[in-house]
């Protein structure tokens, strides 16, 4: 019987022929520390969960979701919000109502520029507090002109209104012919049948084309993860409305979709101390906005010459 010669170190090592225990251990040690270093160098990926999850990555386009799939998506959002903010929200997917087209009317005679609408909007719609994201920009305009280039929104007097000025809040105008929708390369923003232009925050890729296209400077971009204090989170949420956004997506005024599609007035209207803001269904002849458009001196749709045809009207009392 012939046996192959045994190696001097004893039994053959699993690392291969001719390898000593010492070199095997050394190789494994280097390999293990290499793996550890690799893991450590991938540390930034730990934060990836804040941006996407497998469920979010596999989610279908909003308009293609079946009601069952939508229910799952809403549950995922509720879970994510609870994990991040410690508050269990109620997220709904509200559809446009039949026979309803929203319009907003703003009374330039009554507005005193107190900016309460700005902050009521922030509180209602869960906007980031640092850095600040605000949907409404109140412009202080000198009497005698409607040129927004002459406006100033960093005014800070002791008391408002100031002599010689009037105030014009500008927010998303919910255009009938919205330029922002046309430029979106992924159809993450579109106009619904009740006139609200909505954004699917889960579909937006953050290219900011819409921000550039909007002539009213109405769209806002989340440069960082929005910061909202837990105790100021509004738990009444809608998918296309005020659910917390992620870093890297656009947002804008949506006429408080979570309120208005449930029949309520928007937050900016309810907080206005002078009642300068009016909202309603323009197709209903008995609504306030229909009355205003019929009887009042409605001077503009802002930047009318662009042909965007806003659903936000400015009017005077006298």
């Amino acid at each position, binding site marked *: 019987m012939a046996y192959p010669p045994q190696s001097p170190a004893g039994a053959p090592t699993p690392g291969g022929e001719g390898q000593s225990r010492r070199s095997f251990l050394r190789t494994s040690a280097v390999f293990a520390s290499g793996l550890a*270093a690799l893991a450590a160098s991938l*540390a930034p990926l730990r934060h990836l969960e804040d941006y996407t999850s497998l469920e979010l990555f596999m989610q279908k386009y909003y308009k293609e979701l079946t009601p069952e799939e939508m229910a799952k998506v809403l549950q995922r959002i509720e879970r994510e919000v609870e994990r991040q903010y410690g508050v269990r929200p109620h997220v709904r997917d509200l559809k446009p109502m039949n026979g309803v087209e929203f319009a907003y009317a703003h009374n330039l005679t009554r507005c005193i520029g107190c900016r309460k609408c700005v902050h009521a909007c922030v509180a209602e719609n869960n906007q980031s507090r640092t850095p600040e994201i605000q949907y409404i920009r109140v412009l202080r305009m000198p009497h005698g002109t409607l040129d927004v280039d002459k*406006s100033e*929104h960093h*005014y800070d007097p002791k008391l408002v209104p100031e002599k010689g000025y009037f105030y014009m809040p500008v927010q998303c105008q919910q255009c009938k012919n919205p330029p922002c929708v046309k430029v979106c390369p992924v159809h993450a923003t579109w106009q619904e049948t009740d006139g609200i232009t909505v954004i699917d925050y889960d579909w937006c890729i953050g290219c900011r084309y819409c921000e550039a296209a909007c002539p009213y400077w109405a769209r806002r971009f989340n440069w960082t993860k929005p910061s909202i204090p837990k105790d100021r989170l509004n738990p009444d949420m809608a998918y296309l409305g005020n659910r917390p956004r992620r870093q890297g997506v656009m947002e804008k005024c949506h006429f408080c979709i979570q309120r208005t599609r449930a029949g309520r007035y928007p937050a900016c209207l309810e907080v206005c101390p*002078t*009642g300068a803001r009016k909202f309603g269904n323009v197709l209903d002849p008995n609504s306030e906005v229909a009355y205003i458009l019929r009887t009042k001196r409605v001077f503009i749709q802002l930047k009318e010459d662009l042909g965007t045809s806003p659903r936000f009207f400015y009017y005077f009392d006298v």
Partner: protein
Amino acid sequence: MTRNGNTNRVLAVLTLLFSGLAVAFALRLWGRPVVLPPIPLVDPIFTNTATARVSLGLLLQTHGDTSDYDCYTCHDKKEPVKLKLDDQGNVVLPKEHSDLVMGHGSHNRNNNCYNCHDESNLEALQTRDGRHPKLAESSPLCGSCHGPTYDDWEAGAHGRISGYWDRKLGPFVRQNCVACHDPHKPAFPPRAPAPGPHLLHPIAQAAPPQERNP
């Protein structure tokens, strides 16, 4: 042995590279995010929906203190109050009513208490056409002079409304004239504005822009 040596060398180089990366990430050698100074949260008075004034109607609704409106704790029911007038024919307010400002209408055209108050019953009002609304239901009295504004108010175009725009889905609240206007001095009072927008960049935040003069 040379193959093993090569493997080890490659692994060592990779280990060093990855360790370097890990240290770099830990120390944030690239893209250290700008730390924004926290913007103070806005005072909740700017987000509450309270009306500009506390009217008698609101006090009755919320069961507040309405003692200021019990005229006959001081006045005598049987003795009608005579107005004191000065040389120009303006009403001289007694010190008990010194909190009132007679500021309704310009050029002193409306300076007689009994243009609105009922002299025979101080806890009621009177219109020129002989109606006597209660103190808490004064809006029709206002409308007897301010017709177009009253029409706008009834249609919802003037004044504050809250609740449901869709009347089928829920109730709505329309505020009365006196919820915002002091009937003795009706001009809407100036108020302090809520804080303006903060600039995105901390350097810009530290030095706010010069106001442009229009």
